[in-house]
């Protein structure tokens, strides 16, 4: 009897998942990953050819329009701040007390030598706003069931024309994401892991970003602490705050 009940429950869950539309899955990913505002303290480990270096920072962001990041360590980077307002980005360097606007080709440069470009950091719109989705199939990864979701841009200005996501059926978070060019060329790969439930949502605490066209082990990004929907003072999102 127990077997029948558990089998029935499993079938209901599976059928419920299968009944979900790709758009709904994408929406659930957005629900997990996006927030009105968030404060993240994180460390970024950049793997070079000879050695690796770790940079810690604290970021305050509101939606995908405003964000403010301050680098905390190492000493060389400490005090460097970045402010993003819509599509503009400024960086403040304490060593020479200068604020530099980053635009044009400089946005394509990597951030602190990582596999992330300034453009990557700035483009964090919700998936549902940019892509339409279709399910490509199921796959088992390390014993866990994944839905393979293929996203295709529905707007003209998407940075990546298509994406492929391996979505964990339990957490509704991608464990792996591949970003493709319009021609179908794979450009970047992100591995997400160490999912934790924070304030009612699942969130990946470790990410590895890899520019597949470049040599190297990519960039590890580890979240030390994260808070959603907290009070962030408005003055942080001003150029004046960069020099404070």
């Amino acid at each position: 009897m127990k077997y029948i009940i558990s089998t029935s429950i499993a079938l209901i869950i599976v059928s419920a998942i299968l009944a979900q539309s790709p758009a709904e899955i994408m929406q659930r990913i957005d629900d997990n990953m996006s927030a009105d505002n968030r404060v993240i303290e994180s460390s970024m480990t950049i793997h070079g050819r000879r050695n690796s270096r770790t940079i810690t920072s604290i970021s305050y962001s509101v939606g995908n329009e405003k964000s403010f990041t301050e680098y905390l360590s190492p000493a060389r980077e400490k005090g460097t701040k970045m402010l993003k307002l819509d599509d503009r980005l400024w960086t403040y360097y304490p060593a020479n007390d200068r604020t530099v606007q980053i635009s044009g080709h400089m946005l394509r440069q990597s951030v602190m030598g990582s596999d992330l470009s300034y453009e990557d950091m700035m483009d964090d719109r919700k998936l549902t706003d940019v892509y339409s989705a279709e399910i490509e199939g199921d796959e088992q990864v390390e014993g866990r069931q994944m839905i393979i979701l293929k996203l295709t841009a529905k707007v003209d200005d998407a940075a990546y024309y298509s994406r492929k996501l391996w979505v964990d059926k339990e957490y509704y978070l991608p464990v792996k994401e591949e970003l493709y060019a319009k021609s179908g060329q794979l450009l970047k790969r992100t591995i997400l892991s160490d999912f934790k439930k924070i304030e009612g949502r699942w969130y990946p605490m470790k990410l590895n970003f890899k520019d597949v066209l470049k040599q190297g082990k990519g960039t590890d990004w580890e979240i030390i602490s994260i808070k959603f929907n907290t009070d962030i003072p408005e003055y942080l999102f001003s150029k004046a705050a960069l020099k404070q």
Partner: protein
Amino acid sequence: MKLAFNLAYKNLIGAGLRTWLNVGVLSFAFVLIIFYNGMIDGWNRQGREDTKAWEVAHGQFWHPEYDRLDVFTIIDAHQEITGTAAEYVSAGKLVPILLRQATIYPQGRMQGVLLKGIPHQQAVLELPTSVLQYNENAVAALIGHRMAKAAGLKVNDRLLIRWRDKNGTFDAIELRIAAIFSCDVPSVDNGQIYIDFDQMQKMVGLNNHATLLVKGTEEEIELSNWDFKNINVLLKELDDIIESKKAGGIVLQAVLLLIALLAIFDTQVLSVFRRQKEIGTYIALGLTRQQVVGIFTVEGGAHSFLAALVGAVYGIPFFLWLDTVGISFGNVDVGITIAEKIYPYYSIGLIFTSILLIVISATIVSYIPARKISGMNPTEALKGKLQ
């Protein structure tokens, strides 16, 4: 005056080694001034001609927002080729070029490049663009030898290029290096990749758009919505470098000339001091003091004429030889237009200016010590007493 020249000639030849030492140093300064300026002028001429042949032709029409020194302008600086511009483009008198920024990944390294779309059939610039028409397996690309060296690329190598289309969406394809050109103009080579204009338009989604139009004819063309940049504007950087090099050379030439002039000055002071009896005799014979000053000034100034003759004796064969073999700078790449071999250019103006400069300066330094003669007491001078 004839007397002054006769006396000057006899005295100079009579002074022997002292005269020839002065003349030797002065002739060396003379030859060096002509050589240095000839080399700079030769560099300038070759640089201008090469830049015209490879990059600017008879001028360029730029999109009003385009600034070649500001890469931030590239993304928006393009417009459709319409009306008169389109007619000239069809006639091959204007060559459209579309610019975009892109990233290449040679050997797994990330490198920013300037992607240039240029019609493969163009005949205005010396770029061997005809190779860009063969796009069967991969898009054909043309690069310069500096770019090839920097990225470690050879002909038929393939490399991935990533760019953003007009809407900002990433795209990437494989390029095949169809040819590597060699030229003396780094601004058409460093960090640049050329592909066919039509191919480029397809890639970025900007149909019939260009950032700039290269003018391939001397005839006057007026286009609205395009800013014309003439040769002088486009070659300003090269001109500025040449001017600064000339200014730097003046210091060296001035030092050498000063040494030579100092020798003439010393000789004159010595002559006035040692030849007081002779001065007294000239005055006793009825020459005015000014005539005697004139004799000594002509004598000093005659060093420069002799220097010009001596300089011509070894300078002309030297300059003719240089004009044949050129001055090789090897493969130095200092980021400015400089030919592998520079052939000096000696203009008539340069030679006459140099002669005039040396003659006038030698005459002035000869006159200054000779002025003392006008204050001399003829009787005392005749007795040879020191004054």
